[in-house]
């Protein structure tokens, strides 16, 4: 029926090329009523205009708003009528708003484009959201919901509620429901309704929920002679504990209840203003080189009426006795604030728990990195009593191996799969060469191996700088390791760190297997305990030393690839981890895989816990950690897992 009317209308329209005002009240007519504010909208008034359009109850308002927002509404100058239009290279093609008939092309002089500014457009956008919430396209619904989640007002609560029931997409429905509850907290009609909405979220840790609750508890500080009855009072402030005397004084002064506090610069300016011939009140300016002298002169000036009075400490004390300071909630109803307070308490408990969980995950990931970096060091130290200062540079070597492989093989997955064994092979070879050429000759001078390997370390580091430059290079993780495993707004861990954890776990098990279940492991343990006895049993300690050193260095290479995946590869990569690795070995106990595991766990979690107390300062965390290690050594000089028996004493 309606379409029939439209057809008829369009026929009429075509004939007389004008709209008959006699037609039923349609969109065009409503628009004409509001023409002035549509033509020149302002951010302030456009909300009312949009409300007028909606209240008129005519069809097509959302479509019009959309066109208006997109600057596709034109005003035909000759009859002051609005049309939809599009600019076709200077010629404007106008379309009738109600009928959709093409009116024809007009020159750009005949029609004026309506251009709402960005402020107006954003108001239109938020008005449109309520229609988009029920849009048939789930994408549009999603976008609209996102807009609402970021910024919503009271008017949008009802359309949101209306759209929940008809929602078909399950995830969108869940989001809509959650948002509906959140908006009810802020904009609900009745107090009980809002309280119920707050209680609904008990134990939730979402950031959006905290953002909704916190404004409910915002307070302002008030000073008065006594507590008002009709206000929602948060708490009374104790002077000196909750509010400093200076702040209280400033508060009193701002209410006009006390003279302004004396500012030193104002005092000095007053003294200078009253000075003449280098003297003020008979005192030479040159003598005013202490605070006490200046205060005395100022007091004289006040008594003479030449300067503004100020409050002395005693007067302030008396005044503070007379008034009480307290905070009141902006939210007038105590039922809401109580519910919000309770809600936030339970939220904070849940947040703390989740933060502890997140901290645990962080510590675990840091521990696995330290374990990978330190285990090679622990093995060589355990078996050969040799500290390899170049261990950090082996880590760097592994990382650069990974980088070079990626230069040759562009596929990140394949290149990582190749890089891991290759890095092991390269650093294994480097370790064996180092052992053959240097360490072997210094076996009985452990302090000198420390220094000789340090020489290797600085040489390798500088070589890396010469070859690869001082600029850090990236080692890119395959795309399936991008992103994080997110449990909720607080607990999350990146996939790279999970992968490193499994890598560390795998190597821990592998090494345990090699040392406890294989022939090589048996021989290694024999050499660790007593090299002379072992060699008389037919074991070649020389070969064992070489293999152990190679194995320890090889794991350093693997650790290098792992570290390179989340940190940039540079010549200082290894040096950044070497001291932590030493700490891990020292704390864990020498020559024991389980000990190194314990040491890495302890150092990693300790560092994270200290960082948690002082999150802005990782430097301080490392300082305190090292101090802790020094003290720890007092109580367990040989580490957590100490080798017992005769072999321990050299």
């Amino acid at each position, binding site marked *: 029926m309606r379409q029939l009317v439209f057809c008829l209308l369009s026929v009429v329209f075509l004939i007389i090329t004008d709209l008959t005002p006699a037609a039923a009240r349609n969109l065009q007519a409503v628009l004409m009523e509001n023409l002035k504010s549509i033509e020149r909208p302002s951010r302030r008034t456009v909300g009312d205009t949009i409300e007028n359009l909606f209240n008129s109850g005519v069809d097509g308002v959302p479509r019009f708003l959309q066109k208006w927002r997109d600057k596709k509404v034109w005003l035909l100058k000759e009859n002051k009528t609005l049309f939809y239009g599009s600019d076709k290279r200077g010629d404007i093609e106008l379309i009738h708003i109600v009928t959709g008939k093409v009116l024809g092309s007009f020159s750009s002089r005949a029609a004026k484009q309506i251009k709402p500014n960005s402020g107006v457009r954003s108001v239109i956008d938020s008005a449109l959201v309520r229609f988009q919430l029920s849009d048939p396209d789930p994408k549009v619904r999603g976008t609209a919901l996102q807009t609402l989640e970021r910024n919503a007002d009271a008017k949008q609560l009802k359309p949101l509620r209306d759209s929940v029931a008809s929602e078909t997409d399950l995830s969108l429905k869940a989001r809509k429901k959650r948002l509906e509850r959140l908006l009810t907290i802020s904009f609900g009609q009745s107090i009980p309704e809002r309280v119920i909405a707050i209680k609904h979220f008990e134990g939730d840790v979402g950031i959006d929920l905290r953002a909704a609750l916190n404004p409910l508890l915002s307070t302002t500080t008030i000073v008065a002679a006594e507590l008002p009855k009709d206000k929602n009072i948060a708490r009374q402030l104790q002077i000196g504990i909750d509010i400093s005397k200076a702040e209280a004084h400033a508060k009193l002064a701002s209410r006009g209840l006390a003279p302004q506090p004396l500012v030193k610069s104002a005092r*000095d300016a007053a*003294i*200078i203003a009253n*000075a003449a011939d280098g003297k003020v009140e008979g005192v030479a*300016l*040159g003598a*005013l*080189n*202490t*605070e006490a002298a*200046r205060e005395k002169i100022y007091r004289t000036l006040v008594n003479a009426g030449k300067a503004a009075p100020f409050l002395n400490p005693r007067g302030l004390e008396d005044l503070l006795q007379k008034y009480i300071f307290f905070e009141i909630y902006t939210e007038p109803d105590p039922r809401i604030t109580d519910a919000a307070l309770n809600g936030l308490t339970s939220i904070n408990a849940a947040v703390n728990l989740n933060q502890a969980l997140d901290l645990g995950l962080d510590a675990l990931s840091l521990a696995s990195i330290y374990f990978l970096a330190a285990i090679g060091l622990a093995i060589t*130290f355990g078996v050969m*009593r040799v*500290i390899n200062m170049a261990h950090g540079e082996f880590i760097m070597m592994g990382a650069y191996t990974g980088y070079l492989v990626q230069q040759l093989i562009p596929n990140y997955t394949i290149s990582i799969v190749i890089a891991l064994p290759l890095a092991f092979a390269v650093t294994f070879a480097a370790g064996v060469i180092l052992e053959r050429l*240097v360490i072997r*000759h*210094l076996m009985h*001078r*452990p*302090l*000198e191996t*420390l*220094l*000789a390997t*340090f*020489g*290797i*370390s*600085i*040489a*390798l*580091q*500088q*070589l890396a*700088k*010469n070859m690869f430059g001082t600029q850090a290079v990236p080692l890119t993780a395959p795309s399936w390791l991008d992103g994080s495993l997110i449990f909720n707004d607080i607990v999350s861990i990146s996939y790279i760190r999970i992968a490193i954890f499994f890598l560390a776990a795998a190597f821990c098990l592998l090494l345990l297997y090699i040392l406890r279940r294989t022939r090589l492991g048996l021989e290694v343990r024999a050499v660790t305990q007593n090299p002379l006895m072992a060699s008389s049993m037919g074991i070649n300690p020389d070969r064992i030393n070489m293999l152990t050193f190679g194995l320890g260095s090889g794991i350093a290479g693997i650790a290098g690839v792992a570290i390179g995946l989340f940190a940039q590869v540079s010549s200082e990569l290894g040096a950044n981890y070497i*001291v932590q690795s*030493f*700490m891990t070995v*020292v704390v864990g106990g020498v020559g024991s895989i389980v000990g190194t595991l314990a040491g890495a766990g302890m150092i990693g979690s300790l560092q994270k816990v200290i960082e948690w107390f002082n999150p802005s*300062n990782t*430097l*301080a965390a*490392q*300082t305190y950690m*090292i*101090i802790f*290690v*020094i*003290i720890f*050594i*007092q*109580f367990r*000089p040989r580490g957590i897992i100490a080798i017992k028996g005769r072999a321990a004493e050299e």
Partner: protein
Amino acid sequence: MFGRSTTIEKPRSFFMKNPSVFIFIAALSVITVVTTLLSEALGLGLLSTSFIKLLGKTLCLCLIAIAMDLVWGYCGILSLGHFAFFGLGGYMIGMWLMYERTKDIVINSLSSQVLPPTPIEIQDAIGTQIFGVVGGSEIPAIWFFADSLSAQLALVVLVPGLLALLFGWLAFRSRVTGVYLSILTQAMTLALALYLFQNDSGLRGNNGLSGLQNIPGLEEIPQSFISIWFLWGSALALGLGYLLAAWVVSGKFGNIIRGIRDDEARVRFLGYPVETYKLFIFTLTAVIAAVAGALYYPQAGIVNPVELAPIASIYLAVWVAIGGRGRLYGAVIGAALVSLLSSAFTGGQVPDLPLGFVLLQWVDWWTVFLGFGFVLVTLYAPQGLGGLVDRFIRNGGYK
């Protein structure tokens, strides 16, 4: 292991037993006097002020090398943290230098205002001037003595000395030895450096203390003269330090600490309180290092936490190892030679070496050669250059 003497020593005077002390002090005096005569300030002007400063700084490095030789070469404690004491000494003197100089500047600039400045105003202005760079304006409590030269000079000795005493007491009483101890000392200097890197450490974070070459009250005197004074001061300190070290290692005390180096357990079984001896040597050398630092940094002009990084202390061990442990002149030779060569090669003063196919740039390659060279010295000349000198003298003497 080394430095053992098989001849039975008859009671002789200290200098007779240690002829190297004579030679060393004579050589040091000659170098100082000749340098002074060739300097811009007093003599012919053949040596630039910056070169004089380099020499003065090198003398300070020689002094800390003597300390390192005492603790490592004679007592067997490979400390990888002695530069922490050196840096702390520099910080302590730097606090006075910076405070006094800033105070002079502040009083100067405030003197133009109508009212004469009050002590509080001066304090505030100094605080803003010094700590503005790390976003503070309050003078931290640790600067309490910064106004007094004598107090800060006492702190130069006390702060590193007490730190060494505390650390050494903790470490030695729990029988931490060998590489463990080396790593712990390294951790100590790293912890200190990381602490100083923080902006709220009260010592200007990574900016460190700067402008130390300007001595308060001596603004009128040109740097060329001040550099000579510091050269003489450093030479005097080095001479005294050498004497002190030579005296400590001679006689019975020296024998005991050498014994600790060679076999700690046996010395303990003989009834000597090994921990006390080690603690004494550790603290004494820390104090010597601090004095060296207090002389070094006014010549360098700036002290910052980078100076305390573990690498510096390891280089110190490298100098002593190359020079030759267990002989004091070895440490001096090593420190002077390696530090001077390093600054020459990395400073771009040595022409690059064309090798036909590639141009060898010393700035890039010096560290590589130093590293590998050091490995070679450790492997084939464990006694260092001093050992070569000894061998030469012995061969010459017996032929």
